[in-house]
């Protein structure tokens, strides 16, 4: 094998450094005993301990997790249904349908936030958990649909035919064949959606109400009063949780059951 040119390796390392150095520094500083600045004063877990004691942060964490679970769960139920509907033989296969579906993923989030807020205010909806969950579903739903549809397209239609031939009704085909074969994609979409929802700031900022502060909002408000090592610790936890979720999402989609009867053997 030809060796990669040294310049290439150096470039790659620089890119990696650029991407991950801030995260590494952040995690390192969360173990720093110093209360102020970046000077290393020794290793400590005290910021994590303090974090665990902080009632407001715990509350925000619970809020975030509840919102992420709810919006992801709802997005999965609606998204799987929509994807299956779109991919059936009689499904709507028009380009504009696809465009409309993925639009929320590409339009600037701040627009989404403002637009959602306007809608909620116009309809006089009380801002809070409900509005945040709906707001998160706006990007969670297209994400789910895209992932599930990609998987559905790889499923061999002969499986459905075979199941029907063996006496399965449409409902039995769905529960015994389609959904089990979609399981990896459902997990993948769910984990990804959960992460995105957990980390979302912009949309949440616009549609949150009193008593529904999420973790990113909490971090933002804490920073306004000054950077503390506690924030570093909190951020470190969030980074690790996000990475684990995204990693898991990738993993379950990779080692999924073979997607077509021909390629699998």
């Amino acid at each position, binding site marked *: 094998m030809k060796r990669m040119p040294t310049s290439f390796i150096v470039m790659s390392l620089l890119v990696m450094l650029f991407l991950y150095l801030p995260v590494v520094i952040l995690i390192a500083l969360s173990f720093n005993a110093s209360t102020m600045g970046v000077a290393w004063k020794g290793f400590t877990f005290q910021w994590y301990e303090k974090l665990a004691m902080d009632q407001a942060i715990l509350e925000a964490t619970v809020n975030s997790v509840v919102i992420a679970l709810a919006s992801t769960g709802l997005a999965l139920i609606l998204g799987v249904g929509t994807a299956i509907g779109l991919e059936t033989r009689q499904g709507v296969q028009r380009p504009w349908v696809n465009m409309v579906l993925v639009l929320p993923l590409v339009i600037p989030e701040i627009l989404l936030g403002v637009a959602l807020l306007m809608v909620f205010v116009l309809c006089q909806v009380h801002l809070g958990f409900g509005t945040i969950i709906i707001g998160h579903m706006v990007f969670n739903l297209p994400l789910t649909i895209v992932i599930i549809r990609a998987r559905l397209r790889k499923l*061999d239609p*002969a*499986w459905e*035919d*075979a*199941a*029907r*031939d*063996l*006496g*399965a*009704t449409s409902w*039995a085909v769905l529960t*015994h*064949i389609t959904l*089990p*074969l979609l399981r990896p994609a459902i997990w993948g979409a769910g984990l990804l959606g959960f992460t995105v929802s957990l980390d979302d700031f912009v949309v949440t900022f616009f549609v949150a109400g009193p008593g529904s502060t999420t973790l990113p909002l909490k971090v933002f408000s804490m920073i306004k009063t000054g950077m503390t090592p506690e924030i570093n610790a909190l951020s470190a936890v969030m980074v690790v949780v996000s990475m684990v979720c995204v990693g898991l999402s990738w993993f379950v989609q990779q080692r999924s*059951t*073979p997607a077509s*009867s*021909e390629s*699998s*053997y």
Partner: protein
Amino acid sequence: MNESVVLDKVIKTHGLVRAVDHVSLSIQSGEFFSILGPSGSGKTTILRLIAGLDRPDQGDIFIQQRVVTLDPPHERPVNMVFQHYALFPHLSVFENVAFGLQMKGERQANIQKAVSHMLALVRLQGKENRLPGQLSGGEQQRVALARALVNRPVVLLLDEPLAALDQQLRQEMQGELKRLQREVQATFICVTHQQDEALMLSDRIAVMHGGKLLQVGTPQEIYDHPVSSTVAQFIGLSNVLSGNIARCEGGLCRVEHGVLSPVMVTCFPHDSPQGAVTVMVRPERVHVSSDMSVNGYDNMLQAIVHHVAFSGNEVVYHVRLRDETIWMARVPIAEAQACPLAVGQPVYVHWWAHEGLVLPAHPAPC
């Protein structure tokens, strides 16, 4: 014998294509029936129509004298073995085979018994817990058979059952299919594009082309008396010569061709073909020799050796006639070695009048 499956003037259109065009068929119970045709001839569509996976645009389908045209698949006593088996990849061998019985709501104990029995029948004991991906092609094929047969179908539909297997396995499975049919005593309807497979396995064969049924008959009938040149071509390689009937009396016809010398062909005494015809002679009935007058054959055409192919126990000579068509002659190896022919050598092609077939050039639709 009673009829197992009947198709009555069935039409099915896919988009602009008539996949199945006015097909009427009657398949007896217990028969091994093959539908033979090139890809795209509509044979798989016929299976899907019988299975209920597709609905005909027109016409009716009967299974055991009952109209099933609009019945969904799960209400028909029919099961199918799919071309690439379509085994459920997330279910074990046992669960795959048990699927049909589970859908019918059978009791667990019965399912256990029936599946074990069926797996024994296809010789797959001990592989119950494997996933389809962990099986060889032949084993997957047997799981697919077991999965269909465990439901005790009146009719088993097989879509190119042996196409995905290698040559040796294919021969093994041919015997296996016949054995299974004897044991389960169901009607087998098999779709294939392999004429040798159809000839070997079937009690009767239907030859399809372009959505139309060309001929139905026993392998022997179809091989010896094809109704048209398309059937003859498809059922086995054949040499073709187009011409016009010049005279036809007492079952002997004289066919004239613009370039080649006239040839004599026997036909049934009671029919006297007229006009444009196709004369066919099978390669094993053609004799090639460098000698102009051997044995006083009825027919003789001049040709040039174009290619010589050796295939173990015989030699296949490809010769070019004067009208540039290529004919083939299969000659036993001993005979070929006795007087070898070289490429480029002028030769004479001989055959007896009764070994040729005279067919109308444009067959009437069947």
